[in-house]
């Protein structure tokens, strides 16, 4: 049985990765999870310089989901490269660094700083709903998605994954724009912009007022968008959004995802990633699937 997938020329031992922002750089979760078992670790977004992030409260729970507005707090690429990359290199897993910035120049600076580091892929966050500049501002027009991708591709030595926002009217158009700009893959979905109000105190639950919705509540939206994107482009699509179980992961793969990222589930169950990997293998045995690539995009009409 083969669970390995090829992502832009990089072989992942299985399609299960962590979703950026939910897993730090792996050090904290390594006390619970064997990182050697993961297809890849996708790090929390890193910028050219340290960012303080948003005021607290930064998270709120909602029915079947959660809102977050961390605001991309990160230690900056220099400390990240010195501390977090060597930590991850101890493990037999692929390293995908999520990159954030306020401007195209800042994204480019991070890509350039990482060009000679042992990083397998870059994931470019043009879809964070919680920062005023950069983030989602780049991810909501096809023109800027294409331009930002082209610019980053000039500096990046590693293959580039563009992480797309679901807060758009036509996700396929954004996926095509990333492909046209030279992206090696797209990943989706980032969080959906939401809001929660504390009715007892009549105040916003989050200091940022709005936050990104994730968790099982968004899963069907993510499956639909992964399907539409996979239909629209030839480059690989990485699926994420509310994957809690192996069944959710298989669904995403059938929709067209070459790999999947597990995010919010890490908060609900420390061992979610490992359990999803085992569950995918169980599914493959149950349905006599010899190679996981048979499942990618294999959905059909009833």
């Amino acid at each position, binding site marked *: 049985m083969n669970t390995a997938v090829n992502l832009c020329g990089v072989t992942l031992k299985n399609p299960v990765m962590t979703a950026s*922002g*939910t*897993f*730090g750089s792996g050090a*904290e*979760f390594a*006390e*619970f999870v064997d990182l050697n078992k993961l297809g890849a670790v996708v790090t*929390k977004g890193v910028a050219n310089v*340290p*960012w*303080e*992030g948003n005021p*607290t*409260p*930064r*998270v*709120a*729970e909602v*029915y*079947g*989901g*959660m809102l*977050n507005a*961390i605001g991309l*707090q990160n*230690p*900056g690429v220099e*400390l990240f490269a010195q501390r977090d990359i060597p930590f991850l290199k101890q493990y037999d897993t692929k390293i995908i660094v999520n990159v954030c910035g306020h401007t195209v120049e800042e994204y480019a600076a991070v890509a350039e700083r990482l060009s000679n580091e042992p990083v397998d892929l870059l994931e470019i966050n043009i879809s964070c709903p919680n920062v005023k500049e950069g983030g989602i501002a780049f991810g909501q027009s096809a023109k800027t998605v294409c331009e930002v991708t082209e610019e980053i591709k000039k500096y990046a030595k590693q293959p580039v994954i563009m992480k797309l926002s679901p807060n758009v009217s036509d996700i396929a158009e954004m996926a095509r724009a990333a492909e046209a700009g030279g992206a090696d893959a797209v990943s989706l979905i980032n969080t959906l912009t939401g809001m929660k109000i504390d009715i007892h105190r009549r105040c916003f639950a989050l200091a940022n007022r709005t936050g990104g919705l994730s*968790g*099982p509540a968004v899963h069907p939206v993510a499956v639909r968008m992964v399907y539409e994107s996979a239909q629209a482009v030839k480059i690989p699509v990485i699926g994420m959004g509310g994957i809690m179980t192996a069944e959710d992961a298989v669904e995403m793969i059938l929709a067209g995802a070459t790999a999947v990222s597990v995010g*919010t589930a*890490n*908060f*609900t*169950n*420390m*061992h979610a990633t490992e359990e999803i990997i085992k569950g995918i293998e169980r599914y493959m045995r149950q349905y006599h699937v010899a190679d996981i690539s048979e499942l990618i995009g294999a959905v059909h009409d009833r």
Partner: protein
Amino acid sequence: MKKREKFQETAIIIRQEEIADDIYSMWLATEQIAAHAKAGQFLSIYCNEGSRLLPRPISICEIDRPDDAVRIVYRVAGKGTDEFCRMRTGMHLTVTGPLGNGFPNEKKPALVIGGGIGIPPMLELAKSLDCEKKIVLGFRSELFLLEEFSGQGEIYLATEDGSAGIKGNVLDAVRNYRLTADVIYACGPAPMLRAVKEYAAAQGIECYISMEERMACGIGACLACVCHSAEKDLHTNVHNKRICKEGPVFRAEEVEIP
């Protein structure tokens, strides 16, 4: 590989009772957590109801190592704690812990101050401090855990309605009884912590406070529960400390209380 200090386990409820209005005491049988826990640390407790995704961070009130059990005392504040308070002996809860740093033992005359639902973690601290200690507890009105605290040191009370001890807050009690010490340990609502911090600074007393914030992962990965710090933090590389990881106990002058 570093020795394991944190564990995700299925804990069994030994017993649960309501000890004051909406305040519950629950003893949990654990495999590893009790053996590794110390005063001031907390547990992440997961809901069994699948629509509630985030664990609830609840401080450890007492540790019974011989019986591998830990006690939590919590206030019902929302749907998660409401789920917990309905659970009975023999039922299971998934728990991660012990989390956070816990209180240091400075081995010098101490003032142990707890306010409201910040009182429970001070019980295990009071039991673990083997030095002269004065215990100051602040309640709205209804008292709880007094029996457990008795015998752990001199106890001074404050209540908002004056029904027991001094009418006022914990600092009113400290001032009224002219309580002094070489170190202060405190846990309680933010306004209380701000007042304690200010008092300790004015008196030149070393002070440790236990902080609280909305959390997601509980282990330092997600950066949800940060507080501003006076110095740049070594891990985050900004003026933010992770309450779940570097805390929840900080030297008062290290952090800003929101």
